[in-house]
């Protein structure tokens, strides 16, 4: 393991981006263009109904510009174009043409001088509905033979596919022979698990501002995790050359995966602006946003075979996901679920069957984790179930079977396989157990108090990006332009987004480290758009630091080469004889001939000389594809206190162990882990978007009042959240770094469930574990005991 002293990497440098504390940071919803119109959207009151006629003439009469199904291009697309086209299912248009497929689906949009005016115009729109169907809200209903088809056909790449039984896509994988594996096993256990739909509740509702430009092009500010993909999609939908579309990179008020795809309101805003020939601003209301996206749920039937010594022999995993009214790429989701399932433990023989099913609910998409919080709930609960059955310590069973260094793992699904080169799993389990005082853990049957304590452990991982030795189904590369300015400061131009996790700071540190230029002198925050940058796929898949950072490091090294070559002409020496280092006193990077540090020149001087003597800018532009997606591991040790009289759960303490290789930004790395824990806590105990069974509306009615996320009071105290990093170094990562983002949430749910089991001896197979469910189960348990005792 190579370790070096870094000037910037791993240093707890202050965040430079002070706009966020002074209120000056601009988000899409803060952009105001003089003369702009404000847009509002009419959303479907029905969950599944045929659109006969949309008449907005009365709205036009009161001065609104309107678009309806008849006005939007015929192009059928998928808003998430991270996968290669041949593996991308396409089912939607900007506004639905023939029918609506979930309540709250955008149907018509109006723009006017004020939001109020637009809203008033909206009320004048008349819609004639045709046939209406009872909404299909569950997997079972949607799959049943008499279910009305939500789609008759969709496209996969260029191929037109008939949709059968509302199945959006399927993915089946088999490795080895599971039947044989189960025969070898001493114990075979099968359980069914459910994870629920969760709403992202990112604070900035989906927003867009679109300015039609004089050349027929458009400039767009919108909530997006990947501006280049938005541009490609808009070019395709509106038949505009990409050179006429400019998407601005602008700070997002949270996202958690909900803007990997182009948000549904973005093309609506563009269509309005193109029609109105005026700038249009569209800011979703919170209710709009609730009806726009949700986290993929998952039903899992997991069957595992194990020998008495704790060796696994086979695992059969069947999963179903009800995806809602549109398919925002459930196909790679099913692949990733397979990958997470297959790569956490050595099952030996694997069978995986995944099915995605359309329902008349809000379309689902990624949300911090792309299937791993969901499948890990099943896998990690199962490990505890097996450990109990085997009378083994759950940590030992994990240590015995985990996929680790030197093993092959499936990164983003079965098509991206590579070898693990850095792995802190053992350290995390053992060190974490120490910090959590695992040895004091007692079995549930020894607990009799009203408030029962329990502790649970769970593991998870996410890949750092989606790269593999060979390009697979997922597009993954990043790019940057880096230039040394005329005073020796440095500009980094990259389309990579920072979702709040500190990606830009991390990238700046990487560049600082390569060029030895002080962190403060790196410009990275603003002034970026698609036109000024080369492609970057997206800030998703926990790829920011590993892939984006890898790319800026690659480009920075090229700039360094140019710099040294040029400096060599000044020093009348060879570049390899020059030393580049950071002089902290000067606050400058300096270059000097080896062994003669006193003859230094600052790179400011060199750059200025290059400038005034017309040598040109020291700059480089390129893209880089990472050929790996190393797993960043996470392990949660969660303590719970379950009140057996009320069913309430409190989390007094948690130990979180993370493995991200070298940590570039310690502060924000920890921040991401703790933040993920709060969302995991919501996922495990609190949150669910459930639907009215009759009309397919959200039971929370799109109100934050009735969609509760954790507050300050639900979180453990400062000193009771212990976050530690494993001591690893990823040889393929920039300065040894891997990712963290999505990994951080992937084991919170099962750790809570395992802890609750340890507290009260009740296994929950369904999230969230609410007080209602706990109390009911406790009463049933009591009842059963009484029956067993013959009372």
């Amino acid at each position, binding site marked *: 393991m190579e370790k070096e002293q870094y000037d910037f990497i791993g240093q707890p440098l202050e965040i430079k981006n002070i706009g966020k504390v002074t209120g000056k940071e601009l988000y899409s919803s803060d952009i105001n263009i*003089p003369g*702009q119109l404000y847009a509002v959207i009419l959303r479907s009151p029905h969950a599944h109904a045929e659109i006969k006629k949309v008449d907005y003439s009365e709205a036009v009469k009161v*001065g609104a510009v309107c678009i309806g199904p008849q006005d939007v291009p015929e192009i059928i697309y998928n808003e998430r174009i991270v996968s290669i086209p041949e593996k991308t299912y396409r089912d939607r248009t900007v506004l639905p043409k023939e029918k609506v497929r979930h309540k709250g689906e955008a149907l018509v949009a109006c723009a006017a001088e004020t939001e109020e005016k637009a809203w008033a115009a909206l009320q004048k729109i008349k819609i004639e509905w045709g046939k209406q169907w009872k909404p299909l809200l569950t997997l079972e209903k949607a799959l049943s033979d008499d279910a009305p088809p939500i789609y008759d056909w969709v496209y996969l790449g260029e191929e037109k596919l008939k949709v059968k039984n509302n199945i959006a896509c399927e993915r089946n994988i088999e490795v080895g022979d599971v039947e044989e594996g189960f025969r070898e096993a001493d114990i075979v256990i099968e359980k069914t698990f459910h994870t629920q739909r969760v709403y992202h509740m990112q604070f900035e509702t989906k927003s867009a501002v679109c300015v039609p430009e004089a050349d027929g092009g458009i400039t767009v500010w919108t909530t997006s995790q990947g501006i280049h993909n938005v541009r490609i999609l808009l070019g395709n939908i509106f038949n505009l050359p990409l050179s006429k579309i400019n998407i601005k990179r602008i700070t997002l008020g949270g996202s958690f995966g909900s803007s990997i795809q182009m948000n549904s309101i973005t093309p609506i805003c563009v269509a309005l602006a193109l029609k109105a020939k005026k700038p249009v601003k569209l800011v979703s209301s919170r209710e709009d946003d609730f009806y726009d996206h949700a986290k993929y749920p998952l039903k899992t039937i997991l069957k595992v075979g194990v020998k008495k010594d704790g060796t696994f022999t086979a695992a059969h995993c069947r999963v179903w996901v009800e995806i809602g009214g549109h398919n925002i790429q459930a196909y790679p989701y099913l692949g990733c679920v397979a990958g997470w399932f297959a790569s956490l433990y050595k099952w030996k023989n694997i069978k995986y069957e995944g099915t995605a099913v359309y329902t008349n609910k809000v379309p689902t998409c990624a949300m911090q984790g792309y299937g791993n919080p969901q499948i890990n709930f099943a896998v990690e609960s199962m490990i505890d179930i097996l450990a109990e059955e085997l009378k083994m310590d759950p940590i030992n069973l994990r240590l015995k079977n985990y996929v680790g260094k030197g093993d092959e793992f499936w990164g983003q699904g079965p098509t991206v396989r590579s070898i693990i080169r850095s792995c802190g799993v053992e350290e995390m389990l053992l060190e974490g157990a120490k910090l959590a005082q695992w040895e004091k853990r007692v079995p549930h049957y020894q607990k009799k108090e009203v408030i029962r304590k329990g502790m649970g452990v769970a593991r998870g991982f996410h890949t750092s990006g989606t790269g593999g030795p060979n390009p697979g189904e997922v597009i993954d590369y990043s790019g940057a332009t880096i230039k040394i300015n005329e005073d020796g400061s440095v500009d980094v131009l990259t389309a990579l987004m920072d979702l709040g996790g500190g990606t830009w700071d991390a990238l700046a540190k990487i560049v600082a480290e390569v060029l030895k230029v002080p962190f403060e002198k790196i410009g990275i925050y603003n002034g970026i758009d698609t036109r000024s940058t080369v492609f970057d796929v997206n800030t998703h898949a926990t790829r920011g630091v590993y892939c984006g950072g890898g790319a800026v490091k690659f480009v920075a090294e090229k700039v360094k080469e140019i710099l040294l070559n040029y400096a060599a002409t000044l020093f009348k020496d060879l570049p390899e004889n020059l030393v580049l280092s950071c002089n902290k006193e000067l606050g400058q990077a300096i270059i000097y001939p080896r062994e003669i540090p006193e003859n230094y020149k600052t790179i400011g001087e060199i750059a200025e000389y290059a400038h005034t003597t017309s040598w040109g800018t020291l700059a480089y532009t390129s893209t880089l594809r990472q050929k790996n997606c190393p797993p960043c591991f996470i392990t949660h040790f969660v303590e719970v206190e379950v009140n057996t009289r009320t069913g309430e759960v409190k989390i007094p303490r948690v130990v979180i162990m993370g493995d991200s290789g070298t940590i570039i930004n310690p502060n924000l790395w920890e921040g991401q882990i703790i933040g993920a824990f709060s969302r995991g806590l919501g996922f495990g105990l609190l949150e669910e978007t459930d639907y009215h069974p009759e009309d397919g509306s959200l039971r929370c009615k799109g109100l934050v009042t009735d969609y509760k996320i954790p507050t300050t009071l639900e979180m453990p105290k400062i000193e009771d959240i212990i976050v530690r990093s494993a001591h690893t170094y990823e040889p393929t990562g920039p300065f040894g770094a891997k990712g963290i983002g999505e990994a951080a949430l992937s084991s919170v749910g099962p750790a809570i469930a395992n802890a609750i089991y340890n507290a009260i001896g009740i296994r929950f197979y369904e999230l969230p574990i609410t007080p209602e469910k706990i109390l009911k189960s406790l009463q049933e348990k009591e009842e059963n005991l009484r029956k067993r005792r013959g009372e």
Partner: protein
Amino acid sequence: MEEYKIEMKINGERLVATTQADESLLKFLRRNGFFEVKCGCEKGECGTCTVILQGKAVKSCITLALQANNKEVWTIRGMEKFELGRKLQESFVQYGAIQCGFCTPGMILVAKAYLDKNPIPDRKEIKREIAGNLCRCTGYKKIIDAIYAVAEENKKMN
């Protein structure tokens, strides 16, 4: 300061807004988002801010906003609604009559108002008519060419 509510039709669309007694039409238009009306001198000297008011080219910097009350105003943005407007725009582009583009809106509007009145002028007449619009980039020749080309086309069509 007392405010006055005024109403006008700008590029065919109704606008109701408030103004003050001494506000020029130029300021009023820009304040309401019509940034295509450029401000050059605010003294009526350069013609950059020309708009068409009730069919006539006027300099919006020396017109009170209140004087446009209940009237029809066209700016360069509205020109694409007219065949002549579009022809002029295309001709300006084709003839390289645009460099920095700041005087262009005024030039096209003056040309439009003039050609409406006199569809087939000669070069000299055109030259005289745009005399109130200054241009620092082009040296006017290509602007006159561009307008003349439209006049020629008009001639052919008649």
